[in-house]
């Protein structure tokens, strides 16, 4: 016993110097020589613990699996919503901008032009919106169980990525319908998708963390995303932007990615400069967001 027999009540003390404790060799139960878990007060700035995330990859899988499973149980049209959302948006914009405003799309049919922009845009906006809300939606889990908190927004982005993959089938159908050739430039698409995913993830992590503390994020974000649609070459080509404003336009990391996406599918020239600018901004943003997330992570359970 730690406490002497006759003291009925006293502050318990730790049994002698803690440093020597680990050196006692005789043990009945085999315990590891080093602690598996060390709990310390939070440090200021630390990077995201990728090993910890990897150790919890099965939970990540189950979180994605849960969201997909639930969605297809709850909704009447199930999987078709994933395709319908970009299709309906394409139809709306095709009527208003293609037929009425007559936005030029070069030698590409406007419907194809629109869909190839709305497809990555839909992924991006949904991924940012759902991941930003994800931590608040998982408040119960966060206050009751330990796991790396970054799994929650990460799972939200992955769910949207799977939606994107399903919806991209329609793009292939449209390309066949309009008789477009499949070129070797399309080999770049996986890299562009990865690039876009990282951008969505970094914003998702950042807003999810901020949203726990400042709930206004949830109000501001939809407006911000709406504006972002018009600041990106989704419903109009990037050639619309006057040459002397192009530098500013390129600072929007989406402009390089969406133009690149279109170039890969529809065979236009790649704008390498804006793609590189976008990649640079994305990586800086990703590093920044992971540090902010990690710093705020320790407080989530106290605040949410």
């Amino acid at each position, binding site marked *: 016993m730690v406490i002497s027999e006759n003291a009925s009540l006293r502050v318990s003390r730790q049994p002698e110097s803690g440093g020597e404790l680990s050196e006692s060799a005789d043990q009945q139960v085999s315990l590891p020589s080093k602690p598996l878990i060390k709990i*310390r007060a939070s440090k200021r700035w630390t990077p995201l613990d990728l090993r910890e995330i990897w150790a919890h990859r099965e939970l990540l899988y189950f979180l994605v699996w849960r969201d997909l499973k639930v969605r297809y149980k709850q909704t009447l049209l199930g999987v078709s919503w994933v395709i319908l959302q970009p299709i309906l948006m394409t139809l709306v914009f095709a009527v208003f901008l293609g037929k009425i405003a007559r936005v030029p799309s070069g030698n590409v049919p406007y419907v194809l032009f629109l869909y190839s922009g709305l497809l990555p845009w839909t992924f991006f906006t949904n991924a940012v919106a759902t991941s930003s809300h994800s931590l608040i939606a998982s408040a119960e889990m966060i206050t009751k*169980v330990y796991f790396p908190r970054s799994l929650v927004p990460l799972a939200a982005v992955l769910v949207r990525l799977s939606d994107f993959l399903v919806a991209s089938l329609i793009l292939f159908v449209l390309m066949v319908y309009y008789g477009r050739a499949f070129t070797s430039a399309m080999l770049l698409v996986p890299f562009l998708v990865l690039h876009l995913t990282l951008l969505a993830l970094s914003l998702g992590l950042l807003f999810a963390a901020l949203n726990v503390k400042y709930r206004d994020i949830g109000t501001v974000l939809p407006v911000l995303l709406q504006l972002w649609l018009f600041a990106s070459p989704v419903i109009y080509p990037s050639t619309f932007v006057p040459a002397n404003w192009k530098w500013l336009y390129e600072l929007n990391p989406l402009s390089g990615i969406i133009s690149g996406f279109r170039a890969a599918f529809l065979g236009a020239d790649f704008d390498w400069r804006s793609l590189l600018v976008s990649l640079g901004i994305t990586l800086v943003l990703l590093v920044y967001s992971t540090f902010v997330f990690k710093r705020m992570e320790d407080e989530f359970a106290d605040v949410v």
Partner: protein
Amino acid sequence: MNSQTSFRLQMKSIVTVRNLSKTYHIGQLRNSNPTLRDAFVSAIGSPFSFLRGHRHGDGTTLRALQDVSFSVEPGEVVGIIGRNGAGKSTLLKILARIVKPTSGEVDIYGRVGSLLQVGTGFHPDLTGRENIFLNGAILGMKATEIKRNFDDIVAFSEVGRFLDTAVKYYSSGMYLRLAFAIAAHLEPEVLLLDEVLAVGDESFQAKCRAKIKSVSRDGRTVFFVSHDMKAVADLCGRVLLIRSGRLYEGSNPQNMIAEYLDEVATAEAHPASLLANTNESVAPPSA
């Protein structure tokens, strides 16, 4: 008791807690969702306070835990008792890594499974079968572990017939049985339980108690937070009493339970002492 004492001294601790403290700022608690506007206002008022890590509050702090130290050997069932707000759950949440301590250290020589609530992460639209996998993963089980224990979990829960029914159609009893059955098959070296036995009928509670005893016989360690002194006396070989964030431990569990019951009786006689663990700090409220 003596033979057990010498046995314990030979062994290495599986959990070591050194000088653990946790302080909450009341301002932060009272207004846990400040708006961006508040943040901007405070950022304009003192632009660099963010760098120093100062939180704006009204200067009142709540010391949920103060300088708590103890260590626990494998196989012990440790009861943690104390009045509401004394700091029991805070201690458990720090051990579970859900919240971070303000200062102090904890070393744990094993995996930790926590059951602070029954059925965490259950999704009402998923079936019992699906929730076993989801909840198992949330509690930290590997998919292979869940598959291996699947039949046992179903048998323990007694909901076999409704395994492919969405859990939103379950009665609350079935829901709890399934949730506890999953948690009962966790295989970590350290298990943290918070009031879980407060649910379910008498026979189910007996089943849970038996399970906890068998977990301890396997050499695994259990922390058990409860207000049910009968359950604590029945299960725990050791009892820690938390009073206003400070930890007390006496020679035997019965003494600690008696201390606690005394304390509750006193508190009922003098309700004002309920506020005793709020420490006003020197700083005046900010204007």
